[in-house]
């Protein structure tokens, strides 16, 4: 399209290309898509290219590309993940992306702001994923109404960087345009480790008199949450599920297979084995996270528990291939459980935190991880 337009890339240093959806190549059409992307990257001599290194929403922050105060767009609906770093980031379609790559410009309607204020602190075995499933149960999938959502309060500030990314990531499910978290010392520490030029974070916070709609939550009493088929908003406390048997436990995707997610699953499964007849699939979100997990023994703990290691790409979360098979019940750390989302329209997909998915794999049925961790 650039050729047809006779256009140049507006600023190569501000473009990051990540190949994650159609790798590893499985058929002729995915081979073609990836080949076109690779050839284009070579011709253009793009400085920032990540080929099969993991999923863009995790690879970008690991490369130090997302900084507080940035205004960014991504070619995937989970692009609000960048909001965890205090960047205004959102997903756009192919035509708009072409426009941005050529002009460096995009239009925006100034959004209304929702503030989700979380007081207290999360109990052990309860995560950002559970916070998000709780908000989805309350507001539904269009509750965000394409607004800017900010997550704030002591329970949010206490979250690690990757846990914050899970919150911002699933702002997409909330129907928000962006999911912002004010940068702080945790943000700066992460950025320093990536080697990025650490910016001044002063001022990247909501003004005291900002116009917004505010909602209050208490993290202290939050139980692990599980979303039943076929909507992430169809969430209830894990205790409401009466031994729903599962055949597949999936630890994968940008939402649920970052290093911390792998650590959480391993905390449940270390020294144990999944229930007979349960497949545990582990698809780390990035190569970097996979390697760290390997060094820490986290990966081995998951493999010893019976896990199968799948490639670090979007994989089954984007319905790429059909690794689950038909008529199965899956519990997954991913973000979406729409009908057919993970490949088969006859699969029933439940969503939970990595702790909950691991505990369910252990018992062969949807289970409360707090019983297993205790």
């Amino acid at each position: 399209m650039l050729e047809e337009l006779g256009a140049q890339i507006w600023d190569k240093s501000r473009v990051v290309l990540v190949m994650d959806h159609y790798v590893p190549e499985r058929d002729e059409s995915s081979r073609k898509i990836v080949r076109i992307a690779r050839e284009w990257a070579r011709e253009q001599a793009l400085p920032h290219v990540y080929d099969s290194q993991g999923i863009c929403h995790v690879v970008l922050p690991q490369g130090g590309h997302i900084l507080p105060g940035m205004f960014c767009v991504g070619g995937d609906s989970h692009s609000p993940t960048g909001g965890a770093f205090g960047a205004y980031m959102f997903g756009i379609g192919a035509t708009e992306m072409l426009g941005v790559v050529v002009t460096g410009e995009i239009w925006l309607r100034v959004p209304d702001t929702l503030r989700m204020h979380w007081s207290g602190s999360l109990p052990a075995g309860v995560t950002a994923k559970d916070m998000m499933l709780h908000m989805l149960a309350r507001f539904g999938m269009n509750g965000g109404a394409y607004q800017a959502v900010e997550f704030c309060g002591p329970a949010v500030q206490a979250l690690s960087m990757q846990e914050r990314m899970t919150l911002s990531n699933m702002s997409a499910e909330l129907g928000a345009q962006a999911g912002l978290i004010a940068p702080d010392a945790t943000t700066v520490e992460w950025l320093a480790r990536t080697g990025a030029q650490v910016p001044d974070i002063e001022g990247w916070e909501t003004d005291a008199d900002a116009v917004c709609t505010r909602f209050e939550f208490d993290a202290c009493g939050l139980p692990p949450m599980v979303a039943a088929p076929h909507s992430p908003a169809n969430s209830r406390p894990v205790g409401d599920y009466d031994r729903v048997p599962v055949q597949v436990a999936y630890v994968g995707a940008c939402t649920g297979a970052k290093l911390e997610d792998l650590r959480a699953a391993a905390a449940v499964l270390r020294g144990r084995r999944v229930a007979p007849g349960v497949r545990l699939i582990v698809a780390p979100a990035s190569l970097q996270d996979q390697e760290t997990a390997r060094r820490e023994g986290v990966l081995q703990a998951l493999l010893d528990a019976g896990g199968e290691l799948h490639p670090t790409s979007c994989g089954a979360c984007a319905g790429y291939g059909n690794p689950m098979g038909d008529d199965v019940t899956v519990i997954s750390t991913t973000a979406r459980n729409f009908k057919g989302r993970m490949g088969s329209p006859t699969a029933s997909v439940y969503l939970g935190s990595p702790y909950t998915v691991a505990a369910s794999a252990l018992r062969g049925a949807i289970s409360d991880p707090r019983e297993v961790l205790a």
Partner: protein
Amino acid sequence: MRTTEGGAPFLVEDASHRVWKLGPDIDTDLLAPGYVMQHGIDVIATHCLESVRPEFAGDVRPGDVVVAGPGFGIGSSREQAAAALVRLGVAAVIAPSYGGLFFRNAFNVGLMLLTCRDAESLAEAERIGIRFRGAPEVVAQDGRVLACEPVPDFLVDMARSGGLLNQLRKRLARQPAHG
């Protein structure tokens, strides 16, 4: 009916736009069903809205408008949901609210969206006019004037140009040495 550079019909003030009335929450899967997404827009368009109005794709005429309840275009980011309506010659959609991604995609592919609180007071098959007096206004068949939210000039231009791609073509033709 005259058309814009993008092939979409012009909006006109006289009462010549025929209304197709739909309910609330018309999602992107209804507009561009998932099972035909691997095809081109010509094929997708023939399936547009088939599960709520089976006759729509066959009977809609260039210049017709779609009137719907709140939440039009909620769902996925697929651009084809808006492009299918453009392909069928729909001149505009009139609804109280839209899915956020759909709102972007619509203008980007050359579809005019009018945000009108009283959209649902319009009736199936009535003939309406649309005029721009600063903010757009819908003139119902009985002469009632329905106010719409303002649409920024650049978005009106984008829709009239047939979308972002056509605008880029024009812009780059003016600045051949860009970049």
